[in-house]
């Protein structure tokens, strides 16, 4: 491979896709977290119908391929007059999909807090709202953090699906370069770039866990 061509043409072209990949990831993760929190709340606190709606949503988005969801939103919605550009359609599709997973992460984290914590809070005269705000949520978010970061890392990779509807993110640019240069080893380069983004994110997760760990918790598990 011609080194200078690689360094000055191919690599910079791919790297320009990183901001797009990261924007896709951050925006769809944020959408997923916001909607996921609502869905989780509907399942934990909601009336029966609300809980069923939330559950159906989760089952639907977990049970159908993300690619189908992206196609549906990008190509299907225009038939009812909703026309979105490829980037927006990708953010919405990936965000809606991620919401289902994030809802389950949050719900199981809340459900994982033992009943005794509620009893203790109640016995001390706390209201239900106070109990969740001061006792349950602060513990649940610690439980949920590793799984949420895991979901974030998964999204970094899932955003490559946006290439199919033409978003010029990292993988779209890779494909373009491969077909332009006929050098399939560029796929390896793309893989290395994804890895270089994902690894520090996982490290960041470990740091968060350590930073916000409940003191003595590890010892208590032994």
């Amino acid at each position: 491979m011609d080194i200078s061509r690689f360094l000055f043409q191919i690599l910079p072209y791919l790297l320009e896709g990183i901001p797009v990949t990261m924007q896709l990831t951050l925006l769809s993760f944020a959408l997923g977290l916001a909607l996921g929190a609502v869905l989780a709340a509907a399942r934990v606190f909601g009336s029966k119908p609300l809980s069923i709606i939330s559950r159906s949503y989760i089952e639907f988005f977990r049970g159908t391929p993300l690619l189908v969801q992206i196609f549906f939103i990008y190509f299907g919605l225009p038939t009812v007059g909703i026309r979105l550009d490829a980037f927006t359609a990708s953010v919405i599709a990936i965000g809606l999909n991620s919401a289902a997973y994030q809802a389950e992460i949050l719900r199981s984290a809340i459900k994982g807090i033992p009943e005794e914590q509620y009893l203790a809070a109640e016995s001390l005269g706390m209201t239900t709202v106070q109990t969740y705000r001061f006792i349950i949520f602060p513990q649940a978010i610690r439980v949920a953090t590793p799984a949420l970061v895991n979901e974030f890392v998964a999204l970094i990779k899932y955003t490559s699906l946006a290439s199919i509807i033409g978003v010029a993110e990292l993988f779209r640019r890779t494909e373009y370069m491969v077909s332009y240069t006929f050098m399939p080893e560029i796929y390896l380069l793309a893989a290395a770039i994804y890895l270089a983004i994902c690894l520090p994110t996982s490290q960041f997760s470990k740091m968060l866990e350590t930073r916000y760990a409940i003191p003595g918790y590890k010892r208590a598990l032994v």
Partner: protein
Amino acid sequence: MSEELLQINGLRAGYGKVEVLRGIDLRVKRGEKVVILGPSGSGKSTLLKCIPYLVRPWSGEIRIDGLTVSPDPAVLRRIRANTGFVFQQYNLFPHMTIIRNVALPLELSKGMSRREAEETAKSVLDMLGLGELAGKYPLELSGGQQQRAAIARALAIDPKLLLLDEPTSALDPELRYEVVETLYQVAKQGRSMLIVTHELDFAEAAADRVVFIDEGQIVEEGDARQVLERPRRERTERFLRRLRSRLGESPSTN
């Protein structure tokens, strides 16, 4: 002001279709220390939890300091301000330091400022000899220390009635001692206490009255000495004999 702090009449409660309490009548006078004894599954813990409505009774009436317990949030607030509850498994909040565990309820349900609450919390912790642990987290402490902190948390709200649900049962024998010491200390302060425990020595030395419960009903109650040494009912006697023969073995967790 009535002499009786707690009155329970015809209390029935259970889980699902299983009836656990089958008509309990119980009185606790102001300043009185009452120990509840009974085998596993007899309903002792359920009885205790019904009082501040942690378990919802099926029927019957509970009055604390003249106020009838009901699901009305305003009533529950007052009831819980008058009852401190100590759990078998301590149930401290693991994400908060000991002093925050004790102070937070004061801020939330007594409307104290953070500073005021922490000063109160510190003085209660100091009183129980836990002052140095104020900045530690619950899971950094031994079980005995955690339970003493839980007692401090329940005491800090200055309840008229302190409810203790087997406060030493989850602890290893060598850790039980320090909790029993703390119980003696609290008992001396004149607060009304209703304690489910198998600590017979404590019952004998500190309780005014002992109530023996079996299968959801009160089998026998009376002066602590009398019930422990000369029980009138055969069931009480059999239970006490079994309990005493178990001493020295590892304590039951229930």
